[in-house]
C-alpha cells in the first residue's frame, strides 16, 4: 500500500540506529501509525529539522504493517509556534492521542480539532478552554461522548441554573434538595456548564472549573489509572512558579 501527501503531525519520535527515526504520527485519513524515517538524522537528509511535533506535514509512505516506511515528507506551512507555556499543553494533547487512539483508526474530525487546538494554543486563546474543547471532542470521537443536552432520567432538556450530578458512562441527573444530604452519585455540575461545553463557549469561571473535573474524570476511565506525564510536568512547573506567584494548571 502506498499513501501520498497525507496531512499529518509527528506526535513522538525516537532514535533508531545511528541515522534513522521511528515516528509515531497522526494523519488525517489514516489515523495514528508508526513510520520508519530512514536516514532522517543524517546532516544531508532533506527531512532534517522537519520531522518534529507541531509541524504540519504532508507525508507519503509505503507498507501497511505496524511500521510503514516513510518515503516523502514536506512541510505544509511553518511549524505551529507554541511558546514556553503552551508547549506543555501541546505535549498533553500528543500524550492523550498516543494513549487513547488505536493505530490505523481514521479520525478525520479529531484531526481537524487537533490542528485547530494547536493553532489556538499558539494564538491568544486561553489554554484551559482549548484543552477542554479538545478533550470533549476526543471523548466523542473514540466513542465515549458526554451527554450534554438532557437529564438521562427523564430526557428533559438541561436547565441552566439547575445542579446536576454527572454519572460517568451515563450522563447528568438533576439534583433535588434531598440529594444534597447524601454523597453525590457523580460529578456535580450546573446545567449551564454542560451547555457551555456543548457549545464550546467556556467563558464563565464556574463552567471552566466544573467541566475540568468532569472531563478529567471521564478521561481517567480510559487511561487505565496510569498518570499523564505531561500533566505532572506542568504541575511541577506551576509549583516552581508559585514560589513567585503563578496560576492554575490547564491540563
Amino acid at each position, binding site marked *: 500500500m502506498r499513501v501520498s501527501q497525507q496531512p499529518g503531525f509527528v506526535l513522538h519520535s525516537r532514535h533508531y540506529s545511528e541515522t534513522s527515526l521511528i515516528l509515531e504520527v497522526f494523519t488525517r485519513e489514516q489515523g495514528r501509525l508508526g513510520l520508519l524515517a530512514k536516514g532522517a538524522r543524517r546532516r544531508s537528509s532533506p527531512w532534517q529539522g*522537519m520531522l518534529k511535533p507541531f509541524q504540519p506535514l504532508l507525508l507519503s509512505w509505503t507498507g501497511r504493517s505496524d511500521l510503514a516506511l516513510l518515503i516523502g515528507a514536506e512541510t505544509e506551512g*511553518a511549524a505551529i509556534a507554541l511558546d514556553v507555556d503552551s*508547549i506543555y499543553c501541546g*505535549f498533553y494533547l500528543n*500524550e492523550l492521542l498516543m494513549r487513547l487512539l488505536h493505530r490505523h483508526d481514521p479520525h478525520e474530525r479529531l484531526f481537524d480539532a487537533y490542528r485547530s487546538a494547536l493553532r489556538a494554543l499558539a494564538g491568544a486563546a486561553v489554554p484551559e478552554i482549548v484543552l477542554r474543547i479538545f478533550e470533549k471532542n476526543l471523548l466523542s470521537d473514540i466513542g465515549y461522548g458526554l451527554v450534554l443536552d438532557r437529564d438521562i432520567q427523564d430526557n428533559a432538556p438541561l436547565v441552566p441554573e439547575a445542579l446536576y450530578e454527572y454519572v460517568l458512562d451515563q450522563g447528568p441527573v438533576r439534583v433535588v434538595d434531598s440529594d444534597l444530604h447524601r454523597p453525590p452519585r457523580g460529578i456535580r455540575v450546573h446545567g449551564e456548564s454542560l451547555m457551555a461545553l456543548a457549545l464550546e463557549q467556556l467563558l464563565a469561571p464556574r463552567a471552566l472549573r466544573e467541566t475540568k473535573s468532569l472531563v478529567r474524570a471521564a478521561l481517567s476511565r480510559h487511561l487505565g489509572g496510569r498518570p499523564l506525564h*505531561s500533566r505532572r510536568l506542568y504541575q511541577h512547573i506551576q509549583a*516552581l512558579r508559585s*514560589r*513567585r506567584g503563578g496560576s492554575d494548571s490547564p491540563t
Partner: protein
Amino acid sequence: MSQETILEALKEALRRLPGVGPKSAQRMALHLLERDREGMRILAQALASAAEQIRHCTRCNNFAEEELCAICASSRRDHSLLCVVETPSDLVSLEQSGAYNGVYYVLMGRLSPLDGIGPEELGIARLEALLATGRVKEVVLATNPTVEGEATAHYLSELVRAHGIRATRIAYGVPVGGELEYTDRGTLARALTGRREA
C-alpha cells in the same frame, strides 16, 4: 560449551555496540580471532576496567574515574558559571569550542513526557543540590533546540530562577561559514527569533 556457542556469544556481545548489525559483528569477531588475539585481551581488559571503575562525577553527573571529574576538580575553572547539557558528547563539543571556562551539569537525557521522563526520572534533585550550595551565580542552558530540549530549558530556567540564580540560554543560529541558502528552515527560524542587538 562448544566453540560455536562461544563465537555466537561474542557476536551477540559485539552487536550491543551502536551501529553494529549481525554482518559487522561477524566481521569483527572473525578479524579479532584470525589476526588480533592480543587485541582481544586488551579490549576485554579495557572494557572490564571501564565497567568497574568509571562512575558519575558526584558534582556534575558526567562520567568520571574519581569522585570528581577533572573539570569539577580544576581550580582554573569558573565554578560560579554552570552550563547544563543533555549528554556527555554535548559537553565534549562545548569543550572543543574552547570558548567556555565554567563548569557543567550533565542531565544524561532530557525531559520527555511522552517517554515518561519527568524531573524525578532525570534526577533533577542532584542539580538542585548543586544550585543550593550558593556557589553558582549563572546557569547557561545548553539543551538542544528540539521540542523536548526547549521544554527542558524552560523547566530548568524556572528551577534556576526559583533559587534566585540567573538563567541564560545559548543562542542557536546560522553556522559559521554557513550560507543562508543552505541553512535548514528550523535553524533559520531560530536565528531570526533569537536575534540580538548588533
